[in-house]
């Protein structure tokens, strides 16, 4: 009997165990991760979410900037301009990840129990970044699908829509930016975006779009050019910003780009701040070893100190040596390019341009943003700050927008271009005295716009704007100029000053200019390069998407 009792009890117990749906035992939820259900409650939550956008800020890192343009000729040829880019299956910049990040915020932020004004600050930040991302997609691909909702259901047709025309996408970008400008406060804590940052992006995007529409013949450009000017003027009239100067035209421009704290610099609308051990960069060293160099064509755009182009100025000493070439030139040249006496690193002074080494390809070694301090050379140990939005660009936007609108008067120039010239001790640009440069890149353009574009090229050297500028001016064919891949003049007697082994393999053309790419004498622009190719898989998946022309 006992035995039976035992067996039955045991079996009963097991059966009870078996019958229990052990939900409490099996219910396990994340212990150390955040669930969406509990987030977006407070302003801190909104901030925490928006913080991730800041890694997308367009920081002006100088290393290898503008290699994809007519400004520079790196030792390693730019594959895109060389026409060797292949159509990718996936990727290739066709990414909507960040758009989704923004749309997720927009779908969820209203859960927070906060005033609309507070919430709209972060909506403003979100739209600032969404606008910037769409603008970048439009620049690269032209028409793009416009997704402004957070997609949950992956079977929905939202994924299979067609590309929205360029102009419509940009109109939405403009709307997003307008909201950001209207709702982001004038002063914000801790380096967050403020109203002027939004205006700076607004000015940049609108100038790009306005001139793009004009030179691509798309029409409806006036509003954008006007908006660019309006945004720039709002920044200028705020009285918060001015050009950095200590009254030393020979050094101020160079020194501006090797600052360790730009946060209180009057020229920094927004800056990328670095701090020792917390966040550092490797830029100084990268620049010293990048095999980079400005092109002959770029260097030619520096005016002489009389305000005239080299082709016209009696002060021009020719280019038989770099020493001669830099004499009597816009002081920004010696502050952007390593010339005799420049301290390469910790007392290692430049005598001859270091061609034949990894220091420079063309001999016009970029030094904007490079310090000579050993500490900055160390791996990932430099805290040299970068600009995100620089006031000088705002002035150039204002001048160009006004000129494109036909409203650029001398007083506009005096408030913009001539401020830049004052800093470096160059004579003012006087509309009445402007003479067309016989070697101009834009022979058919009015001289005022031509010269404003020159000023922009010189002032914003290595700031990373040049390829975008070529796109909006519809001026890709500028890269066809053989001068855009030539370097310094290396006459036999200059060559003899070098150790033979160093320059033994340096090739020159018939006029002794250094040829960076011995296999070609010129590059050839193909109009398909105005837009990048769309990955083949996207076209296979969604027949509504057609490949860009020429690809």
């Amino acid at each position: 009997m006992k035995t039976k009792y035992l067996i039955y009890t045991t079996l009963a117990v097991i059966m009870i165990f078996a019958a229990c749906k052990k939900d409490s035992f099996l219910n396990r939820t994340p212990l150390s991760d955040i669930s969406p259900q509990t987030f977006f409650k407070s302003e801190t939550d909104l901030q925490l979410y928006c913080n991730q956008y800041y890694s997308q800020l367009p920081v002006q890192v100088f290393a290898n900037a503008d290699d994809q343009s007519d400004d520079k000729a790196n030792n390693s040829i730019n594959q895109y301009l060389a026409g060797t880019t292949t159509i990718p299956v996936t990727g290739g910049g066709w990414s909507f990840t960040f758009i989704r990040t923004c749309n997720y915020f927009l779908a969820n932020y209203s859960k927070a129990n906060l005033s609309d004004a507070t919430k709209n600050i972060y909506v403003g930040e979100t739209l600032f970044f969404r606008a910037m991302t769409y603008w970048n997609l439009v620049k690269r691909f032209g028409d793009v699908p416009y997704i402004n909702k957070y997609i949950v259901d992956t079977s929905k047709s939202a994924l299979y829509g067609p590309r929205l025309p360029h102009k419509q996408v940009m109109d939405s970008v403009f709307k997003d930016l307008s909201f950001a400008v209207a709702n982001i406060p004038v002063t914000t804590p801790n380096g967050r975006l403020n109203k002027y940052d939004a205006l700076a992006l607004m000015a940049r995007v609108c100038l790009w779009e306005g001139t793009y529409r004009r030179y691509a013949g798309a029409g409806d450009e006036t509003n954008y050019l006007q908006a660019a000017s309006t945004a720039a003027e709002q920044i200028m009239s705020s009285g918060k910003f001015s050009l950095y100067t200590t009254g030393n035209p020979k050094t101020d421009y160079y020194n501006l780009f090797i600052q360790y704290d730009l946060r209180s610099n009057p020229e920094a609308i927004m800056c990328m701040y670095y701090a020792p051990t917390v966040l550092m960069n490797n830029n100084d060293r990268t620049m010293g070893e990048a095999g980079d160099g400005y092109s002959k064509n770029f260097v030619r755009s520096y005016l002489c100190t009389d305000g005239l182009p080299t082709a016209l100025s009696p002060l021009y000493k020719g280019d038989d040596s770099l020493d001669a070439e830099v004499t009597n030139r816009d002081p920004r040249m010696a502050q952007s390019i390593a010339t005799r006496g420049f301290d390469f690193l910790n007392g290692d002074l430049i005598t001859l341009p270091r061609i034949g080494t990894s220091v420079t390809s063309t001999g016009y070694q970029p030094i904007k943003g490079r310090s000579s301090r050993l500490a900055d050379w160390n791996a990932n140990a430099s805290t040299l700050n970068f600009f995100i939005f620089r006031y000088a660009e705002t002035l150039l936007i204002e001048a160009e927008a006004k000129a494109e609108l036909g409203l650029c008067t001398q007083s506009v120039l005096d408030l913009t271009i001539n401020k830049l010239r004052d800093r470096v001790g160059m004579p003012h640009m006087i509309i009445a005295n402007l003479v067309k440069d016989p070697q101009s890149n834009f022979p058919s353009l009015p001289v005022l716009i031509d010269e404003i574009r020159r000023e922009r090229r010189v002032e914003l050297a290595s700031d990373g704007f040049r390829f975008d500028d070529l796109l909006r001016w519809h001026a890709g064919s500028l890269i066809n100029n053989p001068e855009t891949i030539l370097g310094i003049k290396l006459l036999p007697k200059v060559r003899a000053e070098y150790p033979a082994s160093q320059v033994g393999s340096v090739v020159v053309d018939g006029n002794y200019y250094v040829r960076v790419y011995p296999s070609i004498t010129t590059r050839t622009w193909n109009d398909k390069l105005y837009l990048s190719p769309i990955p083949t898989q996207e076209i296979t998946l969604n027949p509504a998407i057609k490949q860009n022309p020429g690809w």
Partner: protein
Amino acid sequence: MNFSWLKKTLLVMKLTTIIMLVALFHVSAKSYSQKINLNETNAPLKKVLQKIGKQSGYVFFYDTKEVKDKTVTVKLKDASVNQALDNCLQNQLLIYKVVGNTIILQEQSPANQEKEQLKPVKVTGKILDEKGEPLPGVTIKVKGENTVTASGSDGSFAITAPSNNAVLVFSFIGYATQEVSVSAGQTMIIKMQPQANALNELVVVGYGTQKKVNLTGAVASVSSKDLESRPITNLGDGLNGLVPGLNVNVQNGQPGIGASFSIRGVTSIGANSNNSPLVLVDGVARDPNLIDPYDIESISILKDAASSAIYGGRAAYGVILITTKQGKKGKTQFNYSGSYTTTRPTLLPKYVNSEQYINLFNQAQRTGAASGGYTSSSPLTALDSIKAFAYFADPAHNPDAYPDPGNPNKYRYVGNTDWIKVLYPGWAPQQQHNLSLTGGDDKTTYAVNFGYFKQEGLEKLANQIYQRFTPSLKLNTDVTRWLTLNLSMSLTNTKNNNSASSRIGQGGPTNGSWIPGDLRPLQPVYNPDGNYSGQGSYSNPVAIINSGGRDINKQNDFWTTAKVTIKPADHFNIVSDFTYNALSDYDRANLVPFNEYGVNGTFLDVFPWTNPSQVTENRLNNNYSAFNAFATYENTFNKKHYLRALIGYNQEYKHYQTGYAFANNLIDPSLASIGQNNATKPVVNGTETEYALAGTFYRLNYIYDEKYLLEFNGRYDGTSRFAPGSRFAFSPSVSVGWNIAKEGFMSGLANDLNELKLRASYGVLPNQKTTDAASSAFQYPYIATMPYGSVNYLFNGQLGQYVGAPGLVSPTFTWEKVQTKNIGLDYSLLDTRLSGSFDYYITDTKNMLIGSQVLPAVLGTTPPVLNAGDLRTKGWEISLSWRDRLFNNQLSYNVRVGMANYINTIISDPNNTILSLSSHYQGERLGTIWGYTTEGFYKTNAEAAAVNNSALAGYTWLAGDVKYADLNHDGKIDFGNNTVSNHGDKKIIGNSTPRYRFNFNLNLDYKAFDFTAFVQGVLKADFDPTGSRVFNPFPSDEYGIPYAYGADSWTPTNTNAYFARARFAGSGNEQTQTKYLQDAAYARVKQLTLGYSFQPAWLNKVSLKKLRVYVTGSNLITITSLFKGFDPEIIQNGGSYQTYPIDKAVSFGIQATL
């Protein structure tokens, strides 16, 4: 939801358990009454004994005849059982013996009467085999004593037994062990019988054992014999190739690296699906790589759904059951086994020398310049070449460095260093020692084991040492006749002390490469002035290893299991066990800054990659507990109906905790103490996750007349890894067997046919396994959490922290299911000399959680994982064994051959509607290699220019570049839109799945010698080396260092080269193509062992029971047509040329038993 009903149920359950336990102890208390009261006069003895039994709780065991007709008169009060029995049995010519809780009565025979007379007797005899031939070499042992001898060449033997009552034990490999009582004064003739095949052997199956002859599922077993005869570093090493259908993937030969297992190639292409089998050690899930292989008694591999269904949702990809050694009754036995091994990689990479390097580099540079391709931004100068060639030709009279003309503080290097020789100069030693102690009496047994293993790394200078200690203790005691308690504890303690160089991506084998990726042969180890070479741009691994800090990993894996076995009545058995595991892992790496010097010792800089000083600590604390309870009923009715039923419950819980801490700017950089820092921003991180699993399972066996076998297995599982609505799954299975050999109509063949059994099984198992790591994504895959981290932007001087958008999770996310059909045949013929089995299976992995959904990029995130996609695996396994004796029985041999094969096909993948080749597609055979057809090299630039290759690489194609066939005749070489319907000029050129894996074992025993040979291999497999640097001197840029084979690259003067012209980032030549597709078939002699066992005569002198010495060679010979840069085993497991290869080794070992 309201859970109050649940709480109540739980409370009831708890109470019931308590009541049950109380009841149990109550019963037991009663059954141990020692007070016997008797008052009988001339009562039948049987009746009196019944009374004693009733009062004492003992069970009597006797022959009824002996008790019949006997009467007894007895009067006792409060007497003990012994007193009572002594009283009753005096003058009855009966004696009694208490064994456990049973009292055995025996007639007091004359022999028994003489029992007390202990007088040594000399015994002689002769041993014959089954054919009547003399059998030499048979071990003869006196039971319970140390006396041992062996039969001579004529089969005769002589031994001295302690008394006439002694029992002799006769044992010989391949023959059944016999125990025979001494018959003094006459010559004993012993006829040995061949081992009744392994059919009656017990095989461990889920929650129990099964006679091999009665198995209906696909189960393979391995005994400790196969693992013990040679030194093995871990279980994977030992099991590799032993069992057809069990694939062991040895990732590499790095000290401390374990193996992964898979059964039958059944797999899932599911995202994060873990398709490794469930590994249970004594019933608990454990990491097989942390088990001391010497502690293993037997291993069962459950291959089909029928045999694994009882383990449910973790067993979809099979089960490996490992049973460790338990204590044995009898005298205390002390074992020692130890070995010393010296190892060398099966192959070492060969890099170019300085001359070859300069030539290749300059060729690539010229090619880049001539074709608009990638060119170096810091090319070698003419002077570099001149000086390097001079040093190469005459190192004694030329410098290996010279001051840089452009920077007089720095050297330019022009040496010729073979870095492999510098870093991996010779053989690395290993040693292992195991001590074990076993023994026990009738009631209690114990086993104590202590293992030690030490392995040194091949990178000599790094001085890597891996050590493992594995103490364990097992106790088993029969408390009463119905209660057995069992406790086992084991600890695995490992320590891996390595250089920190791998931490900073500066080479060293741990990050998969042999030397830093940009370490040129031009660089000498030291500058001419004696300082370490390397000046910022080029890292010197010797300097980093010696000065850069250490990376130390320590692990403690503690397991304890308490088990209670209750036998409440005949045929019933209840087992309940509880296991607890604590795993802790602590890893500390510190980086120490050191200086770099230029020309003549000029201080240049602090080496940047170990600066500033820092300490990183990674901690892991896992706790795991498991509870099992199951009851078995087993009985045979009417001699023909065998029935066994099992029902049980299992629950498991695991808790994971990880911690990470980082601080830099140490106060004393050489002191690896994380607390002593000046860090501005130390980093602290951690995760915590858990999972729970609960299941109820059953098994029902029915056997009719040993002929017809029927088995049902099943389990109902719930897991925390799926949402409440979809977390439960049922895994049913059924299997049948037919023992044809036992049929009457086969009786004529009984002598030749020992076994012939047909098996068939079917079952469906769910799979809940995901990667076993402490990440929410793996532990809560149905919940999308929001990622967090820091963003590289300073808010108020501090890195910004962010919380990001969650990923997408399908709302229908649930179990994937694996359905298996298996038919098998087991046979044993010719007195079991020939035996083997065959299995054929079809496995369907259904509703796999596939993440390969191809969606437009506008979605903006990884497409959610969906239960879609079906995969079918078809395969077979065959094993064959032949054993016999030769040369007058003196040589016994055993040959075993096994082979397995399978193919996997994607039956459906609804996610990939466009049948894109970049992910899995419907109809795809797994392992399919798509590639181009090579037609040689272009002979002229013009020929190259005439072909449109722009889809593969945009640079100008030149003579010496690879010429591909234009298969679709569209005038250009491309991949179409990379889909099945439009794949351009690609076609299927091979398949990487290893086919026809085979193994071959040979065991020989000749007198005192034993010999084992073990060969393993694959008969068919393709390997695509694309992406491996062997084929691309400079795959992505100028910084790679080509392997020596790359020197045979095309040049205008070497147009018959094996490789195309050298290019930096020459993607055009690096396409998957027929020319470089490799035949990865191979055969490898995994093991050659020669052992010698000392003979009993000698052993007696030194008071040893057993002593064997052996020498083993592992991986000494490999036959393959594979390009010599690759190890066939490594690439089969996904490794490449740069993977730390497996070792070849020579070992010397000793095994002794006291």
